[in-house]
């Protein structure tokens, strides 16, 4: 277990640095879409939920896994959906206005 821990820590630290560098560059204009997008990406937890629910180890773990599937998948679908909706609203003055 500690062996896994170290390799995970390795990945965590590197991902944290990458995250810091790219998020710093996100325009404050887009901070709301940033939050909804990272939320949708974070919903990748659904893959773990699918495995927990699909293994059927105990009745409890299956039920908890299924709740987790619904909760995280709603974030994934809703997060991408609203982020795209928001980004479509950002227009420059030159483009013709729709609606």
């Amino acid at each position, binding site marked *: 277990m500690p062996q896994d821990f170290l390799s995970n820590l390795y990945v965590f630290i590197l991902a944290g640095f990458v995250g810091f560098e790219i*998020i710093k560059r996100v325009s404050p204009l887009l901070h709301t879409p940033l939050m909804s997008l990272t939320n949708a990406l974070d919903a990748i937890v659904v893959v773990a939920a699918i495995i927990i629910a699909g293994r059927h180890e105990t009745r409890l773990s299956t039920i908890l896994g299924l709740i987790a599937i619904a909760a995280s998948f709603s974030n994934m679908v809703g997060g991408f959906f609203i982020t795209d909706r928001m980004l479509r609203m950002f227009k420059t003055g030159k483009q013709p206005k729709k609606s």
Partner: protein
Amino acid sequence: MTQIATQQLIDSAYIVAVVFFILAIKWLSSPVSARRGVLVGEIAAALAVGATLANPELSQYKWIIICLIIGAGIGIPLGMVHMTAVPQRTALSHAFGALSASMIGIAEYYVGVPNVTRFGMGEIGLEVIIGSLTFTGSLIAAGKLQEILPQRPIVYKGQNLVSLSVLGAAIVLAIALIVNPANSVLFPIMVIVSLLFGILLVTPIGGADMPTVISLLNSYAGFSAALLGFVLNSKVLVVAGALDGSSGFILSVIMCKAMNRSFTNVMFGAFGQVQTSTKAAEEARTVRSASAEEAAGILGAASKVAIVPGYGMAVAQAQHKVRELYDALTKRGVDVRFGIHPVAGRMPGHMNVLLAEADIPYDRLIEMDDMNSDLPQTDVALIIGANDVTNPAARSDQSSPIYGMPILDVDKARTVMVIKRSMNPGFAGIDNPLYYFDKTLMLFGDAKSFVADIVRELGGNSH
């Protein structure tokens, strides 16, 4: 295909997903490439979910599919809310993310017990504590933003002591579980205590502090997912969680700086105290008020106008009327720009999405520092529903609770106009000396109808 080969294929899909996740955020650096970012994010998510469904360990897909459909059924309507409701939707999505991470952590414990190692217990304990407190904390935040719960801070004596004791209890229970992971009676108690702590953490926080709180909860939700990655030894979760966690963390720091609160202050969540005004006895000061007609005259004659929106604009749903004002003034050749304070509204970037929804071009939305260098050359600063972010006391009055907070220097414009319901102090209860300046005109009324009146006076179309 052998099981090992399938597993390698699944892992490869996860690696591609991780790369796409990073690209997705990278492309958010500009509104031009941002939508491409969403697309790669979606591809990555579809790839990862698809690969997972191919996992040979799975059996019986029926309920998994049903729950995916339920999730989509909840997610799509939540993705369709109005831009004014985005803060509460975001808080709710943090709650769902944290709920999901805690459920899996709890399941992992019960599947493993009594063979959970001490080290594994430490990981699960931390993950479940953070996930649970983020779940209830985010629900409270969403409730406050939706105004189901009172937005004002709810405080009582000894609050910090009570909250910290509850957190302490959760940690003690986690330590007891690490000493003896098989003691499964303690586990549900630890979960309940953590859920309680989440409630206590957010209840005392007022609406004006929500941008910081939402960012902080975002960070917690991300880190709980990353910790879950440690528990399950899943690198894709570690990376996604680290990205989400650091995003929330950076936003919290930005929000803190924009409110001049210290970093420690944020980490321990000890903010949102009610601050009472130190200056109550200055009622003799006079204010100048103006009608919509006068305001329209001044705005129409200006060559440069800066509009400063705040949460009040969102509450009054005035953004579409503001857009009409923008159009009417632009048509007359007036240069109109919007000064956006980082903490205006209820979440980071809230004003930008509201104004973008009203079709205001994003190159007109100006960050605080750029706006401030331009305000001394501005004829009129029009403040709509913003208060503390324009309060000059933050610069000059050391006794003010917001002293040191960076503000939009609207008082440097030649004329200041403030649309406000009445002279009642703003949300934080802090008096704003700006209103008593000679160059300030108060426009008393509802933001939406007042802006509509100005537009009508300007001869624009106000329907």
